């Protein structure tokens, strides 16, 4: 294993660690910080791959992640939770050890799922694809197990982080036009969930989405 791959795998490990951290973090502030850290690790990893593999459009992707996921989105989230006065809010999470075990199982599952890619790929980043998919899945798990609107959004954004990471790991990034488009979509999504937080808070007097239970199928 050469140096570049080794550095990259350390960043991959850190991305995975932050993904797990978010899964069990109760405090809103801590959650947003973890998300920003994950973005930072992702951006660093992308830049390193770009440098060692001399794929220059990865620098754009790295800068995009840095600007969007490390600076802009955490800033927006901070402003939002301060405006909604929920920055001190502590979410109740049931059964953290179970969630963790399930998360570990998901990582193993992802490892097996990406095995064919690992075998066929010749890139130095091939081993991190499993971590990328695991990040996506952990974001998904977070959205399922958590009941707070802000948390669900952070889970959603963490999934996007995983997807960017997957693109870097599998193919040294998608074509630039696609990455820019995806970033644009995330930006629009940020705008929309910002509006949503206010609507939900206004209507339900809380950002706990458990209060939204009108539209269940009555049996």
């Amino acid at each position: 294993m050469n140096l570049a791959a080794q550095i990259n795998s350390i960043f991959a490990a850190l991305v995975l660690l932050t993904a797990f951290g978010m899964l069990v973090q109760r405090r809103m502030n801590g959650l947003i910080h973890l998300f920003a850290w994950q973005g930072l690790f992702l951006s660093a990893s992308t830049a390193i791959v770009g440098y060692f593999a001399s794929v220059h459009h990865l620098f754009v992707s790295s800068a995009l992640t840095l600007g969007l996921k490390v600076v802009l989105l955490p800033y927006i989230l901070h402003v939002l939770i301060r405006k909604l006065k929920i920055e001190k809010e502590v979410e109740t999470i049931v059964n953290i050890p179970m969630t963790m075990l399930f998360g570990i199982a998901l990582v193993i599952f992802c490892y097996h799922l990406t095995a064919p890619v690992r075998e066929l790929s010749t890139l130095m980043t091939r081993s991190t694809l499993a971590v990328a998919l695991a990040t996506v899945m952990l974001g998904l798990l977070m959205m399922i197990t958590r009941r707070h609107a802000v948390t669900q959004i952070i889970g959603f954004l963490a999934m996007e982080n995983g997807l960017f990471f997957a693109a870097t790991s599998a193919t040294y990034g998608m074509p630039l036009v696609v990455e820019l488009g995806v970033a644009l979509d995330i930006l629009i999504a940020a705008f929309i969930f910002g509006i949503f937080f206010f609507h939900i808070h206004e209507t339900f007097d809380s950002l706990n989405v458990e209060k939204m239970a009108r539209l269940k199928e009555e049996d």
Partner: protein
Amino acid sequence: MDLSVGEYAVGASTMLLILLLAPFGSAIILAFVGDRKLAPELNIIGSAATFGAGVGLALEVYFRGPMLAGGKFFFVDAFNVYLAVLTSFVSMTTAVFSRRYMRREREHGRVGHLGMRFYHAMFQLFIFAMLLCLLTNNVGILWIAMELATLSTVLLVSLYRTPSAIEAAWKYFILCGVGIAQALFGTVLLYFAAEKVLGEGGEALLWTNLAGVGDKLEPTILSLAFVFLMVGYGTKVGLVPIHHWLPDAHSEGPTPISAVLSGLLLNIALYALVRCKVLVDVSTGSHHAGSIMMGFGLLSIIVASFSLLRQKDIKRMFAYSSIEHMGIATFAFGLGGSVATYGALLHMLMHSLTKSSIFFTVGHAAQMHGTQEMDRIRGLIKGNPLVGWGMIFGVMAIVGLPPFGIFTSEFLILTATIKDAPYLTPLLLLGLGIAFAALVRRVQPMVAGPRPSYQVGMKPAHVPVILLMTLVLVLGLYMPQFLSAWFDKAVGLLR
């Protein structure tokens, strides 16, 4: 199948440009026009221009064959141009319908000043996103446009700002976001496989390039990619068990939005899925992808038809009916073969026309009674013959009675099923039968009988309902030569 680049006429198409610029431009203009009096008319004009361009493009393709435009950025063949025409047509009729409908909502104070501005601009943006989905040559752009289509409708679903509407929109946002993320992972895997054959760079994600090298793509990777794409785009198609956003979003948003979501967005997602399926089938040389689609389709038909029985909300019921019909189309595409594919294409068309027409009448019926609860909607024929009869004909068409078009498509699909997968025929028939019973049982008391005291009269939008239902009837009785030839071409692309 052979879709090498040489087959495409390359060049800039004015029609294609207009087709994409008309809705995009309208969106910007309408964002500035806002709640002025002429906004609905502008909305109709924009949509009409889009439809005109769609027809123009279709004629171009019909006479000159498939083409590439904008430096390989866009491509048009028989399959996507037919959906583009359908999209622009249904969006035009919806724009006509929404003029009367939204004016009334505005008068009743359900939508505010800002809401109307937002509604018109986002409606056009949504049409633009769907057309971009259809016409782009790049699998990545397809994903981006699909996400854009979701994002532009999320806030339309919550337009009324009621607790249920916000809940529905949140669900829509979160579930579709989750789903579509899986599709992006699938796209990454697809790119991984394509890159090995086509080399690095954006070229490897072009449909036209991929189609030519389908058999060289790594089958294991493509099978894996298809699972993710299936889950991702399947969420947007509204396939069971990832359909939970659909009934909520359809029932809580404004009716014109329900009509375009049901009639158009689901089709677009299915389009993406079918394109991927063709690619994967060529690569794996097996029926792997088709079987997955058949499974999801059949499950959707059964679950949706049973759910139809339990509904109390009229828009919710028809939302489940949409799930059922998308299930039928998915099943048929999965089945493959020329008859089933032809049937599926026809089914997409017929379902779009019929379901949007039904939503128009349903919207008016709900406005007349001030509720969407079916127990409170009574005496529609006496109250307003157009709404009453429109709904009767619409439901007759949607349950697959002759002589309407859906009968033809469902008949074709059934025939193909009996031939290729006879053991599945009873399940399919069971789903269709239950849906039939559920819908007829629910709709009959709503249309017949005396007018209830709380019913208020209104002027419905005649043109869209009559236009759409006539089309469904005519196409059921007589299939014009050019349309049939067109479908045959599309079937040829998908085999």
